[in-house]
């Protein structure tokens, strides 16, 4: 039976693509993403397939949105994507539909060697289209981060050009073998590498070219530690080339692409010049500046700051002691040309000695020492190793794996300023590039100090990891990355199950706060001011959801509105007046059946009505008190006395009148 006919659940996306989850296409698997058969119902002759993202993967949804419309770029473009349900309690995974590649990849995924391609063909068939594709990506500020021979496909009728493979079904560089990564990225665990820069893609392209031309790589069989050590000690070019000989022209290209110093690394301009035959000065050999004396740490001798920072991270206790050792400062002063490093580390060591700690540097100080030793390297804090732009991915990974330790570490890293320090340590050019991310991170630093709903670590998660789907259990099997899809999803759940699991949820609130392009600070402040009052918190959430409906639609949410109307009925008791409550109850019924959260919100969250009610209540209280006083006065002894005196006064008046009348009558007679 052909795989297309295999049985299994069928999921339809966009009312167009049918995905046959039971029909595997293993030859198109990419790392953890399983390839399955898909059909395009609109164009049945179009060969498509889908990749179901691996569990705990971090699909680059934001990149998919941009890449979908880049028809000119020779990159495997996602046609569409959507969640597919998984059996059991597993969360739904994202399936991404692609056009089926016309040919195989340049190299099988499991292979460690391939048939070499002559360098003169490589520049025409592979390098030129690859540079063009990277140019397109670079123009839009995107990186591929999965360039390797096994993810580059031949295309064209005569296999005369290439297409860069899928870069969206997993996080950036997450499945990239370490030899394709720059030294700093190689020292970082996959999930902490982040989107990186276009220069990282060029480095991976350089390694790929080397393998394509030579058919192998000297470091293919080496362990990760050996690859890092070799690259650090010899430089990437020398380490990767080994004893391989390269043609003259291509040697320049590889030198340029594999330069460890990002400033010297070849980019678009240099490659375009080289491709059109322009002259280009040869890249200087990566000079390994020798030091007079090596620093001994954990039985090994180090002559390189970057390697030492890496070693400190691997042995944090010993690193904490060594970092505060005056001998280390002396070694830096005598052997490292960059005096700023020894100055910074000296200052950190002095502050550690004044704090009187016997165990040397504390984790934060050690992280700062490592950052001073390797400013382009990752943040190295306790067990967390990640580049600052990748903290969102690390956090997302931590949430998916329910790893509280890593979640807490990311929070600490942002909170104690190590992440912002990482950005400020970068070159001015890079700082400009990272400006938006840095601003975002500073905002998150403030948000972390607030543990209220809509803030905290969850807000960081959704702000720093823009592709991460909302993790709220309220959303059940929905995969929501765009805030526009949130209300329709909630509506679907309520119409199916009659209710939501809960209305107020930290993930839901943080997701809206981070992804909704609306200023909801006042709403969140209201929720915070509720101080645990369930009704007020629910009303706050209603306000937020109503704002979402107003901004993004849909105009009708009958099931959700009706359920929320019932859920929020007790909130009517905020109003003291019975007639107001009765009126609101009627309006609530109407709003509930009207399908508009905005109506419901204006009915229940009306501050003006509430103020009027408060004023009326005060007036009623005064009236009650005044009436009570008057009753007391009318029942008092003083009132009886007054009445008696009044009677006497009247009697006296009558008597005087009679006397006066008689006098007048007689006087006039």
């Amino acid at each position, binding site marked *: 039976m052909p795989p297309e006919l295999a049985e299994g659940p069928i999921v339809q996306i966009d009312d167009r693509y049918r995905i046959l989850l039971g029909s595997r296409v293993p030859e198109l698997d990419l790392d953890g993403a399983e390839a399955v058969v898909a059909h395009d119902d609109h164009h049945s002759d179009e060969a498509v397939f889908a990749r179901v993202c691996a569990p705990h993967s971090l699909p680059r949804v934001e990149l998919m949105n941009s890449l979908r419309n880049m028809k000119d770029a020779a990159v495997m473009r996602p046609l569409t994507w959507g969640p597919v349900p998984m059996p059991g309690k597993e969360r739904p995974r994202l399936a991404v539909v692609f056009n089926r590649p016309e040919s195989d990849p340049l190299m099988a995924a499991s292979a460690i060697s391939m048939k070499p391609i002559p360098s003169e063909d490589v520049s025409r068939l592979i390098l030129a289209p690859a540079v063009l594709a990277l140019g397109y990506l670079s123009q839009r500020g995107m990186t591929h981060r999965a360039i390797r021979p096994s993810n580059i496909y031949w295309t064209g009728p005569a296999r005369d050009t290439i297409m860069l493979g899928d870069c969206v079904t997993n996080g950036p560089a997450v499945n990239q073998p370490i030899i394709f990564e720059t030294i700093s990225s190689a020292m970082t665990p996959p999930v902490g590498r982040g989107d990186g820069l276009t220069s990282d893609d060029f480095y991976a392209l350089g390694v790929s070219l080397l393998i394509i031309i030579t058919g192998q790589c000297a470091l293919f069989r080496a362990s990760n530690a050996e690859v890092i050590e070799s690259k650090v000690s010899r430089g990437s070019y020398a380490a990767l080339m080994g004893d391989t000989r390269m043609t003259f022209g291509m040697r320049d290209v590889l030198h340029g692409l594999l330069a460890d110093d990002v400033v010297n690394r070849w980019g678009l301009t240099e490659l375009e010049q080289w491709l059109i035959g322009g002259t280009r000065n040869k890249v200087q050999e990566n000079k390994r500046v020798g030091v007079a004396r090596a620093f001994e740490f954990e039985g090994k001798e180090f002559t390189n700051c970057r390697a030492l920072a890496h070693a400190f991270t691997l042995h944090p206790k010993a690193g904490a002691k060594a970092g505060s050792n005056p001998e280390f400062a002396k070694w830096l002063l005598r052997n490292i040309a960059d005096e700023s490093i020894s100055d910074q580390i000296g200052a950190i060591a002095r502050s550690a000695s004044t704090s009187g700690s016997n165990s040397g540097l504390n984790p934060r100080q050690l992280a700062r020492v490592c950052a001073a030793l390797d400013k382009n390297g990752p943040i190295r804090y306790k067990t967390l190793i990640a580049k600052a732009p990748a903290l969102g991915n690390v956090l997302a990974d931590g949430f998916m794996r329910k790893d509280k330790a890593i979640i807490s570490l990311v929070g600490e890293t942002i909170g104690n300023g190590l992440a912002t320090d990482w950005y400020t340590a970068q070159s001015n050019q890079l700082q400009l590039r990272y400006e938006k991310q840095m601003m975002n991170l500073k905002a998150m630093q403030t948000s972390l100090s607030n543990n209220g709903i809509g803030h905290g670590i969850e807000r960081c998660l959704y702000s720093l990891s823009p592709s991460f789907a909302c993790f709220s259990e309220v959303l059940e099997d929905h995969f929501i990355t765009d805030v526009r899809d949130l209300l329709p999803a909630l509506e679907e759940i309520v119409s199916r199950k009659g209710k939501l699991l809960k209305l107020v949820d930290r993930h839901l609130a943080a997701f809206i706060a981070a992804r909704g392009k609306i200023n909801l600070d006042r709403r969140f402040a209201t929720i915070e001011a509720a101080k645990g009052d369930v009704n007020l918190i629910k009303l706050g959430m209603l306000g937020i959801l109503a704002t979402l409906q107003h901004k993004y639609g849909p105009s009708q949410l009958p099931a959700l509105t009706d359920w929320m109307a019932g859920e929020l009925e007790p909130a009517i008791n905020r109003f*003291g*007046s*019975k*007639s107001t409550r009765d009126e609101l109850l009627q309006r609530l019924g109407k709003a509930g059946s009207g399908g508009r959260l905005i109506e419901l919100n204006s009915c229940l969250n009306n501050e003006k009505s509430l103020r009027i009610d408060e004023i009326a*209540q*005060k007036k*009623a*209280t*005064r*009236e*009650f*008190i005044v*009436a*009570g*006083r*008057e*009753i*007391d006065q*009318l*029942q008092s002894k003083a*009132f*009886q006395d007054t*009445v*008696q*005196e*009044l*009677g*006497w*006064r*009247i*009697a*006296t008046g*009558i*008597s*005087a*009148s*009679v*006397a006066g*009348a*008689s*006098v007048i009558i*007689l*006087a006039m007679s």
Partner: protein
Amino acid sequence: MATSRNQAIKTRAFLILAGVLGVLFVALPTAILLSVGMMPTLVAMIVDMTRGRYLTKCVAGMNLAGVFPFLHSLVTTSHDMSTAINIVSDPFAWLVMYSAAAMGWLVFMGLPGVVSMFKVLTAKRRIYILQEQQRNLLNEWGDCILPNKDGNQDGDDGSVTTSSTVSVNST
């Protein structure tokens, strides 16, 4: 100081005595008629315990109304002793003067009761209206408007006795 006050009292007493003697000398018949006819007022003045001396005023007014026709007759005729004696020895004159005084006394005793009855009825009606108003307020707002109720901004008003509120609740 004390000497000067005694001197003033003595002077005033002398002046009153001189005035009375003067009146007796000039209008002795009128004085005889008034002293006999206004006797009930004198009695009322002695027994009056009210703060504003309402009994005295009430009896005096009516008593005067009863005496005045005879006084008028005396003054407008001869104004002599024989006419005055004739009037004070006439039982009809006594009946008229003392009945008028008695009327004054009766008015003093009866009218406050009548007034009080009207006022109390009006007050009861007012109390009923106020209690109805309080009941309506309680129906509309509930306990939150009760004085000394938690969350009631005006509830700390100590000037209101709770008795009235309790009586309203029990109604």
